[in-house]
């Protein structure tokens, strides 16, 4: 409490904070960034371990021997696919496969409306304005012989792969093989639900919504006729061939949620037991695990994870389970040419082990971490380790806030040129009687004194600026949908209209500083100091709240925005500042981070122009999917950027372009007498 109540120590603190402000800020930022990057280095992170002892991984003997079923079924499904190319899911055939094993099998139909006007349909009939998807999910429940269906585990698979639209027939084959193996055993104490979903995330969302009785206005589905208990965990399976070289484990879920680290450990451990290589984001763990190359590799893995997490979009079907408090991961079997491969037998044994461990669970996953970053599949960085460097980066903002808070109201000339800092106030020209003289004054950039309270800065001037910025943000958040509606009238292609809506407001608001000219809102140096202080406070709040909900997004925003926004000042070097500010604008950041992602993942380099074109395309699709996912799945990243980050950025942008008013000390009485 000394600092709060003792004026001496308080003064000392503020003197130090003001005197060494810039070096302290640089130091905090550099230490924060270096510390954070160093977390990817082996001595600074920890080896993963099991917190939940009930899992007992690998203690049972694997008995899975029905891999020939998997081969047969996946081949049969492939044949069906070859006959009916791109046809709907062969529901009856799939139901028969499950029924043949004696499982309770059900189907669920759904219609998802995507709020994007479809040009084709409206021309035909004019009644269906939006794109609609019809799909059918098939699921089968293996009832646990030991309990009364109070708990369940899910094994799910998408019918088609999302990207290449290839059939996921191998995963279905393995699913049937596992089902036929599991149903012979009597030790299950949790129901096992086998789920095959159509249309990826939409189908999954439809099933989960119906299972948990939640409703969305855009999604209509038939009720589920068969149910089980509360779902404890889920494994989602994607196999690209019947022989895989490694499993790519996908973790990042909706809105940056991650599954409990115990589940990830479980999968990684059991894969290791069956000698299947595990990769994260297609990145192999390094050996030897120390040294410079290992550090580079780990940093790459961690960065990819952060970039994925920051988008808030699930990179597999597992991501949707996480919203319902169900721990889930996706196992993606990938065949990389030139590597040793593994067949259904060992994949089946891994999954058998995972399910038997999950079967042992006595409580929900709660022991291990929910907030972590993985630099390698067996190393983790927990929230306690990554928050201090993040805090150091935010400390830059905090130091700047305290700096400006000290300087508001002091006549100290130093920050931002003081010789102008005598007495300045609102222009009052229009209200005073003698308009002539005032106009000439304001043309020369001269403003008049009004109140005596000049030194503290004008708190009320914050109200119009902040509210203008917020209104701009609000418009940006609703404009994609408004623009698609308007574009529909003018016959624009819906996606183009959507992009126009999402970015149009951004470009339009770049001209906002023109609107708060001197005539509308005159500012003294102290008022501008106050603005800067308020903008920094808002920024710190936004970044802290974002980092609490989605750490990667908060961190990526903070690393770039904090140093630039801390340096922003009105007046000097306006062009350079504008360039820097544009780089850290929401759109600029999207381009930068998409570029970084491509740099880390793309192996081939085609030259500057094709790469730039590729980058633009990817950015385009990122914006598109960000907006559409917001409507369909409820991701909030676009809304956050539009409603919080963008207005705050705009505030700083206004500060850059705000002109200080040239002060003139005038004496009212003298004027009256004259």
């Amino acid at each position, binding site marked *: 409490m000394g600092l709060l*109540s003792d004026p001496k120590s*308080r003064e000392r603190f503020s003197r130090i904070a003001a005197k060494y402000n810039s070096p302290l800020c640089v130091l905090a930022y550099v230490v924060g960034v270096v510390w954070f990057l160093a977390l990817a280095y082996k001595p600074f992170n920890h080896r993963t371990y099991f917190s939940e002892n009930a899992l007992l991984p690998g203690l049972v003997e694997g008995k899975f021997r029905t891999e020939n079923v998997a081969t047969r079924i996946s081949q049969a499904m492939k044949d069906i696919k070859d006959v009916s190319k791109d046809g709907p899911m062969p529901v009856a055939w799939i139901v028969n496969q499950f029924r043949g094993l004696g499982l309770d099998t059900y189907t669920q139909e759904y219609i998802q409306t995507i709020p994007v006007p479809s040009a084709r349909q409206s021309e035909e009939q004019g009644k269906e304005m939006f794109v609609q998807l019809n799909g059918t999910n098939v699921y089968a429940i293996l009832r646990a012989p030991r309990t009364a269906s109070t708990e369940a585990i899910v094994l799910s698979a998408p019918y088609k792969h999302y990207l290449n639209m290839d059939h996921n027939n191998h995963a279905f084959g393995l699913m049937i093989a596992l089902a036929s193996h599991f149903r012979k055993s009597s030790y299950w104490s949790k129901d096992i639900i086998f789920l095959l979903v159509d249309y990826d995330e939409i189908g999954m969302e439809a099933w989960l919504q119906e299972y948990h009785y939640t409703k969305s206005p855009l999604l209509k589905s038939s009720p589920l006729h068969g149910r089980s208990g509360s779902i404890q965990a889920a494994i989602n399976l994607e196999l690209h061939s019947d022989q895989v070289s490694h499993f790519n484990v996908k973790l990042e879920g909706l809105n940056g949620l991650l599954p409990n680290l115990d589940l990830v450990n479980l999968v990684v451990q059991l894969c290791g037991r069956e000698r299947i290589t595990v990769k994260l984001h297609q990145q192999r763990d390094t050996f030897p695990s120390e040294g410079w190359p290992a550090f580079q590799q780990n940093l790459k893995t961690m960065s990819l994870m952060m970039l994925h997490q920051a988008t808030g979009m699930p990179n597999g079907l597992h991501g949707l389970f996480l*919203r319902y*408090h169900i721990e889930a991961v996706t196992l993606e079997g990938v065949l990389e040419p030139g590597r040793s491969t593994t067949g259904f037998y060992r994949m089946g044994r891994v999954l058998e082990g995972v399910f038997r461990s999950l079967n042992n669970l006595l409580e929900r996953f709660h022991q291990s971490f*929910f907030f972590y970053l993985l630099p390698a599949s067996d190393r983790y960085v927990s929230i306690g380790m990554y928050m201090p460097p993040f805090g150091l980066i935010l400390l830059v903002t905090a130091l700047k*806030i305290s700096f400006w*808070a000290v300087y508001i109201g002091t006549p100290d000339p130093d920050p931002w040129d003081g010789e102008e800092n005598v007495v300045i106030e609102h222009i009052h020209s229009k209200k005073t009687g003698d308009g002539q003289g005032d106009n000439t004054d304001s043309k020369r950039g001269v403003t008049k004194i009004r109140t005596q309270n000049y030194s503290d800065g004008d708190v009320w001037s914050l109200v119009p600026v902040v509210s203008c910025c917020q209104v701009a943000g609000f418009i940006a958040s609703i404009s994609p949908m408004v623009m698609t509606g308007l574009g529909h009238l003018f016959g624009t292609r819906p996606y183009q209209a959507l992009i126009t809506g999402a970015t149009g407001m951004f470009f339009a608001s770049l001209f906002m500083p023109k609107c708060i000219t001197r005539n509308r809102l005159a500012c003294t140096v102290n008022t501008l100091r106050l603005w800067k202080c308020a903008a920094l406070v808002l920024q710190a*709040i936004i970044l802290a*709240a974002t980092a609490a909900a989605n750490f990667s997004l908060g961190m990526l925003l903070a690393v770039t925005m904090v140093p630039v926004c801390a340096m922003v000042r009105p007046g000097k070097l306006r062009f350079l500042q504008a360039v820097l500010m544009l780089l850290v604008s929401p759109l600029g950041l999207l381009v930068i981070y998409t570029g970084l992602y491509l740099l880390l993942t793309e192996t081939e380099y085609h030259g500057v122009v094709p790469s730039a074109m590729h980058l633009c395309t990817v950015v385009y699709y990122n914006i598109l999917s960000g907006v559409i996912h917001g409507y369909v799945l409820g991701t909030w990243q676009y809304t956050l950027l539009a409603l919080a980050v963008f207005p705050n950025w705009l505030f700083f942008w206004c500060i850059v372009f705000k002109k200080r008013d040239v002060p003139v000390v005038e004496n009212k009485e003298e004027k009256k007498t004259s």
Partner: protein
Amino acid sequence: MSAEPRAEQRPQFRPVPKALKYIFGLGLGARAVLMSSHLAGWLQDRLELASPVTSWTRMTEGLSLLDHGISPYEGDMFHETPLVLMLLYCLSKIWGGLIPIFFLLVDLVTGCLVHEVGTNVCRHLLEKQGRHVKFYSTDSLSLLLTGKQLNSVPRLMLGAYLLNPLTIASCAAYSTTGLHSLVIAGALLAAVQGNRLLATLATAVASYQCVYPEIFIIPVAMYIAQLEQGGRFSFRDPDSRLSLLQTAGGHFAWLGFLWALSFLPFGSMDWLYSTRGFVMLAPDLTPNMGLFWYFFTEMFEHFRIFFLCVFQLNAVFYVIPLAVKLRDHPMFHLHLLVGLTAVFKSYPTFGDAALFLSLLPVWGHCFKYMRNLFLVVCMWLYSIVLAPVLWHLWIYYGSANANFFYAVTLAYATAQIFLLTDLLYAFLRREFHLRHGPAPKEGQGMPILMNLK
């Protein structure tokens, strides 16, 4: 100051009605829009806005139980007072659309009351300054209050109440916190007007409704006694004691009357346990913005009674040291108590704090001695933004846990306590400067450094 020419002051008064219109229009408009938007349903379940006592969800439960002829106080669901229940029941029977109008009106009336409190307290401050000015140092003329300075205070208070996002959200959530603010504002107004009958009635209504305002009776009684006795007031003086006792007696008589009135609809006193007992014993440990829930969930059951006493005493005890220290300033004392109970009560909401915030402009003349105002504002903003985020992470996603949310409530409470202590310090320091001049010197001519330890 009084030397200010009158002609200067007159145009200052003219924009007032216009500003008031704007404030009323904006405040009511924002409330009405928010009430009719789809956010209203979400707001109703926000624990920051609706405590178990004031939640509208529970109120609907109570209304429907009453409709079925069951006393809502038999269960463990409903904790609002019988008179409010009967009032809302009548309204909902007449026409369901009256409910939102009722909540709008409550906030509107509270705004008016707060405005009146401002006007009256300012007048009271000026009068008091006039009486005491002969004791003040001749150097401290610049510290004296002027009518012009206090002119905008009631408007600011009205704006701070009606345009505060917290009260807007709280009103849109149909939280009866608005009603609590109304009765407390009524008590403040009646107190400053100094009419014993009205003041005791108003404090009785406030303490009937929200329990904690029971302690308001101490500064109110002191204020009335001081008005009656003038300069002769002292705790030892038998006349003063008689006056204090009369006020306290009046308060309890009114309270008894209100209880009797509440006895009538149900024919039993069960409601007393469900309302007052609920607030005092704090059996519902659903998380809220207060300090009780976390502590009592963590604690062994056999310490419960002891710590319950400690926590409740903490909420009310400060009235005694403050009564001693602020003997000459009962109005300031009363306003501090509004803030104190808003932090330490068992089921606080944002609406309670918002009422205290709207009282602050009256003490604007002390602000220049406050040292942590900026820090408090920042902490407040942080906790208001982070509370829903961490709540969501904890309850819906299951990834965070109770400690995250409790940290936010702690920060929120700390910010409020800082604000209160800082305000008290600023007030006392201003008093000191009034008596000793704005820049008092030590014997050697060194400037004195103020310190509060």
